[in-house]
């Protein structure tokens, strides 16, 4: 037990900053993927075929590509095309590109759950497009969208570990550093697990809470 605690205290100079890096990656990629995902969702529900086609091809391609491959493309292939990022920025780009496809799907299915009759009734009352959107459709869509959106972001938090395979100094990479220092690997991995549980539990709790509160009876 003493050894176990020492793995944490002796290596705090590695574990602390690495987890901070994970949190940073998560926050930046979360904002990025929500913004890009919203744009894509707007394209996919728009009445313009060209935009719809672009949005759905993006989602189709990215959803069927492993995240590890997205990372590999960004780390090895993009520099060959003359586009280079530093490790952290690159990881944010890869995570954002991948996650936004899932965010887009969550948003789109949320909008589709709003019955057409709602919008039709609003239009029949003479509301304008903006009024229909802000007063009728979005408030209803928001409730169905947020819980799955939180679960997508939750998955993205766990996905940040993939960056460890590509020289990003985040929580997953702690393993490599500890093995260099000859520390007990199992203890190290247990601490990483505990760290992730601490990060994940608030998100899961939030998701459950929202699901319960916003269950729409239809």
């Amino acid at each position: 037990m003493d050894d176990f605690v020492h793995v944490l205290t002796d290596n705090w100079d590695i574990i602390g900053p690495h987890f901070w890096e994970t949190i940073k990656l998560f926050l930046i990629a979360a904002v990025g993927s929500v913004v890009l995902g919203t744009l894509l969702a707007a394209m996919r529900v728009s009445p313009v075929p060209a935009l719809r086609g672009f949005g759905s091809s993006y989602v189709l391609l990215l959803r069927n590509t492993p995240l590890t491959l997205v990372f590999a493309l960004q780390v090895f292939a993009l520099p060959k095309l003359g586009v280079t990022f530093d490790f952290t920025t690159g990881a944010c780009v890869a995570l954002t590109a991948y996650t936004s496809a899932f965010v887009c799907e969550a948003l789109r299915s949320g909008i589709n759950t709003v019955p057409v009759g709602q919008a039709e009734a609003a239009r029949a009352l003479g509301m304008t497009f903006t009024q229909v959107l802000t007063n009728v459709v979005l408030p209803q869509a928001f409730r169905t969208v947020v819980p799955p959106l939180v679960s997508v972001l939750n998955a993205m938090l766990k996905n940040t570990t993939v960056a460890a395979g590509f020289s990003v100094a985040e929580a997953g990479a702690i393993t490599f550093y500890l093995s260099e220092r000859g520390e007990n690997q199992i203890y190290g991995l247990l601490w990483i697990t505990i760290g992730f549980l601490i990060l994940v539990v608030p998100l899961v709790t939030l998701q459950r809470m929202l699901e319960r509160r916003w269950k729409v009876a239809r």
Partner: protein
Amino acid sequence: MTNVLYDLPGPKARLRYRIIGILSAVGIVALLAYVGWRFYDTGQFEPLRWEQFQYKQIQQDLLDGYLTTLSAAGTAAVFAVLLGALLATGRLSDHLVFRAPTTGFVELFRAIPLLILIFFAYYGPIQLGYKVGPFWPLVIGLTLYNGAVLSEIFRAGIIAVARGQSEAAYALGMRKSQVMISILLPQAVRAMLPAIVSQLVVLLKDTALGFIIQLPELLYYGKQIGGRLPFGFPYVPSYLVVAVIYIGTCGLLSWFAFWLQRRLMGGPKQVKTTAKAVKLADVGQSV
């Protein structure tokens, strides 16, 4: 097209849509042209960079990698489905002795990042002095994570089977295990099949994590092929080929899931489940 957001367009709106459509089409073409120009400018279309793919050995390597990916995915899929069914039954048990540990197990393994699970299975035995290859750690990690996720899908499916089904079965004098095995599970699996197949696509995609623990799967060979100096480091062609293989395989499976959903939803012998549960499993699709 009737849509929640947009009314059927009148003549003015149609014109507006057409203008926006042309503008955005031009924008998309410009974007693609820029990407194509970057490819051309950096010499990605040079024959030298693509020459390797004509070699028998390279094709054999790619095939080997693909087969390793498929066999890891196949093995993990079988174990994960079995584990998922077991965990779901445990979670639905009437006895706290079974319910509590399985609930804890599922919640825990869903919360741990998959890569960390794989690291546990890979570095753990090494720490204890056993030598393991990368294949089984990957399979074990995939099984534990996807087993936990699949158990939630199964559970949602079983809960969604109409109450009358199990009540009728009990009324006929069936035992609990009989009700579960011959009444609830078959209907749940049928209702949840699309969700299960979607999860298996996720599993297939996640085999690419084997790359990080040096399993010679598709991505590993992609890097090898791309890293050859005599061919001008053809990373772009090699990863594009790998991406096409992944997207083709996963796309086919996703399409199969979609087809199943269509078929099962529209079939005459539609299972009486609440639509809510099917939605729930859709939402549970992991990233």
